[in-house]
């Protein structure tokens, strides 16, 4: 039944077409392990005709990611799927460990989140994937809806319940086959199928604010078990006023990644790291980096990173 529900989600949402290469975002955690297992199973059972590849991002966190990557490597053997790993170190010249050494424990999740979004797209590009699918479950999506209301982020609020997102023609579409699957169903499925996954929390402090939203969702589920799907329904049927301004998407001047400002968030954060100004890019985008008033662009210090390369086809900013 669990499997059929996810099959139904994939079919009714037209998530894939035959012949496509699909990158499965694999972190070694329960969601992505279940996703990899079930994608492999459904692809064979229902003859989707997909070319599945595991794609992992190595943030460079000793004692967390190195162990979880071992899990992914075992999954690679268990499910006989190819695996591609891209690392922060090779993409940005910084690992999370070295970032934390420089900036301390505060805000490091901002760096990690921004970098991971791009890293997954870059990895998918390298393996010429047509689609990326991620293990976000119903609980994650409900939590994100609540987060975006609390943050007043109307653009993300609109996008976060979409099953497939692609805000840019160049981008690789992302989809969430587990969108309607409760976290506890995933845990039970992984348990019954005896799946090999890694369940340690990241050693760097989790986002406290997101923690509140998470606790609220869990409490809601206690009060009314359908609450999580009810929130997703709310997100799906809600309407944004037409006159509401949405950020105009352009491309980062430095790396070509999609961005609503002159420089994408990752490049601003990197510049801060490289110049020893780690506060740069935390919170609101500084004026100098916004698209309006473009005259300041010459003043920017040109930072030599692996990101500075020819404009290439890159995917949209992740929407969760």
């Amino acid at each position: 039944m669990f499997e059929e529900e996810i099959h139904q989600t994939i079919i009714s949402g037209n998530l894939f077409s035959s012949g496509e290469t699909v990158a499965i975002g694999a972190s070694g955690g329960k969601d992505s392990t279940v996703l990899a297992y079930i994608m492999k199973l459904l692809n064979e059972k229902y003859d989707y005709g997909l070319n599945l590849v595991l794609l992992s991002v190595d943030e460079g966190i000793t004692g967390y990611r190195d162990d979880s990557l071992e899990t992914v490597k075992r999954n690679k053997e268990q499910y006989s799927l190819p695996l591609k790993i891209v690392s922060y170190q090779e993409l940005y010249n910084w690992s999370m460990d070295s970032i934390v050494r420089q900036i301390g424990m505060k805000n490091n999740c901002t760096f990690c989140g921004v970098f991971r979004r791009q890293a997954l797209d870059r990895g998918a590009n390298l393996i010429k994937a047509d689609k990326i699918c991620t293990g976000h479950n119903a609980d994650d999506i409900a939590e994100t809806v609540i987060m975006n209301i609390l943050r007043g982020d109307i653009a993300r609020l609109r996008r976060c319940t979409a099953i497939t997102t692609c805000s840019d023609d160049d981008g690789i579409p992302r989809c969430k086959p587990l969108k309607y699957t409760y976290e506890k169903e995933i845990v039970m499925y992984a348990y019954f199928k005896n799946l090999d996954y890694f369940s340690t929390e990241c050693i760097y402090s989790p986002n406290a604010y997101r923690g509140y939203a998470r606790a609220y969702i869990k409490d809601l589920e206690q009060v009314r078990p359908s609450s999580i799907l009810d929130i997703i329904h709310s997100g799906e049927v809600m309407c944004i006023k037409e006159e509401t301004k949405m950020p105009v998407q352009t491309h980062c001047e430095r790396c070509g990644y999609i961005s609503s400002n002159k420089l994408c968030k990752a490049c601003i954060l990197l510049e801060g790291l490289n110049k020893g100004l780690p506060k740069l890019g935390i919170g609101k985008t500084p004026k100098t980096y916004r698209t309006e008033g473009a005259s300041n662009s010459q003043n920017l210090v040109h930072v030599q990173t692996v990101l500075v390369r020819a404009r290439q086809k890159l995917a949209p900013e992740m929407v969760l």
Partner: protein
Amino acid sequence: MCTSLEDGGLSYLKINNESYKATICMKCKVKSPQVVIRVNDAFCRECFLMYCTHKFRSAFGKSKIIRDGEKVLVAFSGGQASTAMLHLVKEGKSVRAQKKLRFVPGLIYVDEGAVLGHSNEDRQRIIDRISELFMDSGYEHHIIKLEQVFSEEFSDATLLSPNNAEVKTSQERLQQLFDSVQTITAKEQFLRTLRQQLISQVAKSQGYSKVIIGDTSSRLSVALLSSMAQGKGAHIAYDTSLIDDRYDQLLLIRPMREFTSKEVTMYNRFYGLNPLVVPTFTTKATSGASIDKLTETFVSGLQAEFPSTVSTIMRTGDKLSNGKVSMPDADGNTTSPCMLCLAPLDISVAESSALGSVRYTNQLAASRKSDSPTSSADNISASLERSCDLNSYDSSCCYSCQRLLEDMPQPKFLPGAVFSREQSRLAMKSYIEENLLS
């Protein structure tokens, strides 16, 4: 209306916040400050009250929604916010007012004591106090019992005496109805729906075209999140914006929308007003008692730590419009609104949607019911009671009201008069015949 968030306002409210050292009022720059509304905003008494009056008046000014001489019904619950609202109306009508309010106010109080478990003595005590207050105002007024939703002639909105035999039987019917509701979340939602229906019926029958209700930003930010959590995403603007236009020929207006619960409490305190404390379903309950209560605890906790929480939620709400989800059906007929909450239906969704996935799960569960048990992994969803039977009211209720009715297994005493719309009535009748009279 009268929520415990507002009633509890006093506990965290402190005049002259110790951490803040303003020495003069930020407005007049003369007097010493007596209230700090936000960090760095310290007002003296006079400037604060002027600020409140201005805020209240601008709610009408901005939209020019109320015409001169129009009858406006003031929904009064006795709580902090509606006490302040009634006072603002009275001040606006008084000779002291700089620019007089030009509408003709009337007052309404809905006595919900029957379902809130109040004793008859308590109910009478509250009603006596409200009547006195209403009489003093000199405005036309209506004190309605919630059980009058059962009354055949309640559209006449007569002031019924508590000894009236008709009321007594309808009181029992109402109590039975609420007793059959299994969760406090559903009780609260159902009470809200009935109250609004009743107020709008009285308003229409008495020639009012506007109703003003005292929802503050603190209350509405909770309502917004709570509505989201109850699947009312398509109706956020109805539930929280300045104007709720879901009712036929009647507008619901929320002029207290820019006030925080703290401001309302200060206002009442400066004028020496004493709001009523009417216990609700969750007054003494823990935070997990209902979705509303949980959300209220959640928002006030965040607000204490991040003072911009309420205003950010309200800003998000301002950018939402009512969902245009009442799609025409195959024959081009627009569907009627939800028979319970009267908001447009939000259930014509694509197969790839939350509702679609619920429907599919139900379908699977139904087809499996007769089968012998398969592997345990296969039955996870079923064992988690994920499937909820949303089919029963499929076409006549919105998603959220369907959830409400799930918690109400035998709505056999539903008051027909509430669902006055012809089509709704028919739908309800056939539903009752099919499902309940067996």
